[in-house]
């Protein structure tokens, strides 16, 4: 997976699909392009030797978040009017500012260059797993309370009262 051709191919597809997310007028199409974007991004992470991040990307983003957007559109489609338009000049401006900012940070902050090498040190899924269940077991347990509360909240807020 060290071939730069694969990297550039995926990067090209990534930019293309993200442009399609922004440019498509229909929210259904936009959300499916978003799924494509997440998948290509996962591929890009794989070429950068980050399999754990890549899998997280697929499970969390294209698996859960994109599906959630589609569900939201499906359930509210009758009532809401989704018109994707306008703001193009502002969008281009914000994107330009953001890109310049990121380039400045990468150029000026040496830590980012060191950070890129951290990926290249082999199987990080195993490393993440081991540290999650040894040194970071306590924070991991706290997430149990967090998820329990979120679950209760979803039930309480969504439950209809009997009339």
């Amino acid at each position, binding site marked *: 997976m060290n071939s730069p051709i694969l990297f550039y191919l995926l990067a090209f597809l990534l930019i293309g699909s993200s442009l399609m997310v922004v440019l498509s007028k229909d929210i259904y199409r936009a959300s499916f392009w978003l799924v494509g974007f997440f998948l290509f991004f996962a591929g890009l992470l794989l070429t950068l030797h980050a399999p754990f991040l890549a899998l997280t990307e697929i499970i969390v983003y294209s698996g859960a978040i994109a599906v959630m957007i589609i569900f939201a559109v499906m359930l509210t489609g009758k009532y809401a009017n989704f018109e994707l338009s306008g703001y193009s000049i502002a969008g281009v401006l914000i994107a330009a500012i953001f890109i310049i900012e990121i380039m400045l940070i990468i150029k000026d902050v040496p*830590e980012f260059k060191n950070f890129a090498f951290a990926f290249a040190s082999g199987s990080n899924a195993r490393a993440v797993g*081991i540290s999650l269940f*040894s040194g970071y077991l306590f*924070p991991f347990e*706290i997430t149990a309370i967090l998820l*329990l*509360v979120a679950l209760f909240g979803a039930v309480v*807020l969504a439950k209809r009262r009997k009339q």
Partner: protein
Amino acid sequence: MIIMPYHLSDFAVIVPELIVAALMLILFVVDLASKNRKKILSSISIAGYLAALLYSVINFWPAVQKFGFVGQIFIDQAGNFINMVVTLTAILAVMMSRDFLDRENIKDGEYYVIMAASVISMQLLSSTHNLIIVFLAVETLSISMYILTGFFKDKEKSPEAAMKYFIFGAFASAFLVVGIALFYIYSGSVEFSGIAKANAEGLLFIVAFFMVMVGILFKIAAFPFHSWTPDIYEGAPTPVSAFMSVAPKAAAFILLIRFLAIAVASITVQWQNLLWITAVFTMFFGNTVALLQKDLKRLLGYSSIAHAGYMLVGVLAFNHLGNAGVLFYLFGYVFTNMGAFAVCEYLSKKGNEDASIKNLRGIGYKYPAAGVAMAFFMLSLTGIPPTVGFVGKFYLFSAAIDAHYYWLVILGVINSAISAYFYLSVVVEIYMKGDAKESSVWLNSLTLKYVIAIGIAGTLIFGILPSLPFNAAISAVGIL
């Protein structure tokens, strides 16, 4: 082979959290088992919080920091102090909820379960130097608060407030987590001590600092991240507003003090400049906008913004007296603010929650006890002796004078003078001749009356004899 780095002795460090976690699970099971007797849940809650409170009181001394779970969490006097404040607030909030939920026809027992979860998160927040635990605790706290805010499902305002809070809170959490990630990239550590070792000159360090501060200042409701407060206090059930105005702030303030004193100690001058502006704007915003309020709960919302501003003055002083002053202020604020909200709840009508100040007209003659209590709490919020509000402000401002922040103290005193106008106008309304337009049925609840009585007792006793909690606070801020 994975070697477990934990021992059984690590659990001694998280006993208060474990007590409340057990309480949470018991509440959940009892809620399932008991169909219609929800009052038993409030009794169990009070017993559980009381146990956690007593544990902190008994184990307050000696002044050491005991670490556990590879240093990710510890127990110390400051943590114990905040644990007392939080559990005390929770007890009073549960007492306020007991008959209120009945009257408003809220039958979901999850109310008490979620409140217990929020208490755990605040206990964690007040006893860690680890930004990962900070983030998880802040998220748990925020999510529980969103849900509690939206518990009035019948009313339009309550779910709307929950939604607003959720959107604002999600932004603040995003800032916090990006800030933590940047700190990790820059210094290779999520521990305060590791961050402190990093070179603070870098651009990334400053950006990370700002982003983490956004997350913390949002929880404190300081300027410019205050705008959610009044709407949420107005929309939420009154006991939840009361709980929210005291307990999360206590946890966030001790976190702020620890973060500023340890993690970013190398840029003390810069953060002091930043906080100076924040404190002044927070005080002025809270007090001047409160002048325009017609609704009692909104007024208390703006007043809580202003009080966060006073406490920021103590943080800014950055000395023992200032930090201890903040802890003492929080302690006094429990009695005063919970009391004020309790009177507000006592005088509210079923369903029609919006307690307009005009509706208070003449209640000083009709309900002498409630009138006197409200007047007393308003005096304490203004900061007039012999109340705990006065003593708290005195400590905060004298700490600022010790640190040579003369202008800040002058601005703070001007703000107290402004605040006297709207607090005392409530008192004037209470003792105005004549009746309110709408005759009202008061919430007749024994536990609610106890809350008002505890509020008065605490405000008065610690206003005259502040030395016991203040000495505890002074000792607590010795080790942060």
